[in-house]
């Protein structure tokens, strides 16, 4: 799979040269970052096509000898500075969480967002408890961060199947649109 070759080569270079330890010159470190980012970028297609097969297994791989459409899965490589262009541009989106372990796990998902109110629906149609917490000022001012996200949306992706996935439907809502829920389930934030 040629889509993997760029990352294969990057990993080969990194491991051979003990990259990312500070013992290379700085412009070389930047070059390593460039090579690695390019390699990961070229892997996006293969992860999206592999995940498409899992998400929609009933779809044939080829329709009339034409490749079946690949679901456009995006990743957010800048989550380490709480930045994600996709979630900032879109009022609604689907979060698909893939579990690479061979046992069920749960994970708290954190997504940078611009708005203040969101509804998250799990695969069974249940509305999930969510919390929205401001991103600290120290992260907002990290040099190079270009983001309008001021908050992070948090929800629990529970019981993800082994080597499997769950998808969550996320939609921005006004405060009035949020259904009233029992007190015990209502998120109560206090600053």
């Amino acid at each position, binding site marked *: 799979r040629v889509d993997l070759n760029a990352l294969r080569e990057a990993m080969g270079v990194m491991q051979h040269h003990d990259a990312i330890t*500070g013992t290379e010159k*700085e412009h070389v470190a930047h070059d390593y970052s460039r090579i690695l980012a390019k390699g990961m970028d070229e892997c996006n297609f293969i992860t999206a096509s592999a*995940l498409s097969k899992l998400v929609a297994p009933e779809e044939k791989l080829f329709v009339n000898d034409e490749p079946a459409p690949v679901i456009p899965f995006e990743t957010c490589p800048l989550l380490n500075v709480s930045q994600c262009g996709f979630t900032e541009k879109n009022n609604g989106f689907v979060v698909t969480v893939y*579990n690479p372990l061979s046992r069920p796990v749960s*994970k708290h998902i954190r997504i940078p967002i611009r708005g203040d109110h969101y509804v998250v629906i799990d695969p069974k149609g249940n509305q999930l408890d969510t919390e929205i917490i401001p991103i600290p000022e120290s992260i907002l001012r990290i040099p190079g961060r270009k983001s309008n996200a001021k908050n992070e949306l948090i929800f629990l992706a529970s019981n993800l199947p082994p080597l499997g996935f769950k998808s969550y439907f996320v939609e921005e809502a006004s405060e009035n649109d949020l259904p009233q829920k029992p007190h015990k389930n209502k998120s109560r934030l206090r600053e």
Partner: protein
Amino acid sequence: AEFQINETTGSISKIIMNNISLDFNQEFLYYKGFVGNNEVFANRSSGAYIFRPYGKASSIENQNQVKIYLGNLVSEVHQQYNDWISQIIRVYSGETYVEFDWIVGPIPTDDAHGKEIITRYTTPLDSNSLFYTDSNGRETLTRIRNFRPTWNLNLKEPVAGNYYPVTSKISIREKDLEVAVLTDRAQGGSSLEDGQIELMLHRKCLHDDAFGVGEALNETAFDKGLVTRGSHYVVFGTKKNPSGKTIAAQEKDIIQRKLLSSWTFLSPTNGLTYQQYK
């Protein structure tokens, strides 16, 4: 897990986990890097290849500003120590660990030595000079402070000589109780006093150490010093925890979930409702 914050200092003062309440302190400190002409080993500067601190670690002068967010899913304390160190202490509902999400940088260059920033966790454990690291990613190795197993040690570098690689875990023990710090990346770490664990977070050295790279470890991005962000997961317990899992099993579970974390993908809804999309 639960934790308490000292209202005066804004720092963590106690953690409750696995039915055990433990006095707990965490602070940020920095070592000054040694500066020399590199002509003999004694004059070797601290740099990219070697860690040679000049004296003991100094506390970060700070005015710790704290914001607290309490919720059903997660509770967070946002700490701002100064312009270049901040942290989020976080507990998720149902999880038996406390996360320390630290942000360090750009490190100021206000003296010739440079700064090597560490975080230090202090507990009352009598760890008897022993600590444990998972150096090399294979097995957990016992480390004894100021000691080597195959020769009589006369340590000239009491700090750096006790630093070891930490791939994903460093821990201390007293009898049945183990306190571990799980890392999200390989770091250097040590236990310089009983009950303490410290880990190197970020370094800015203003002089080359003459081991080959030919430039100081003084990296920039966007014309500013690098900012680094990462997480430590603190967990403690015994062989008989209320969950039925031993502390070792809990640690292994957390490490797997963090280092082989689930992947998150995003897709557009194209304006569809949930029912239409489904």
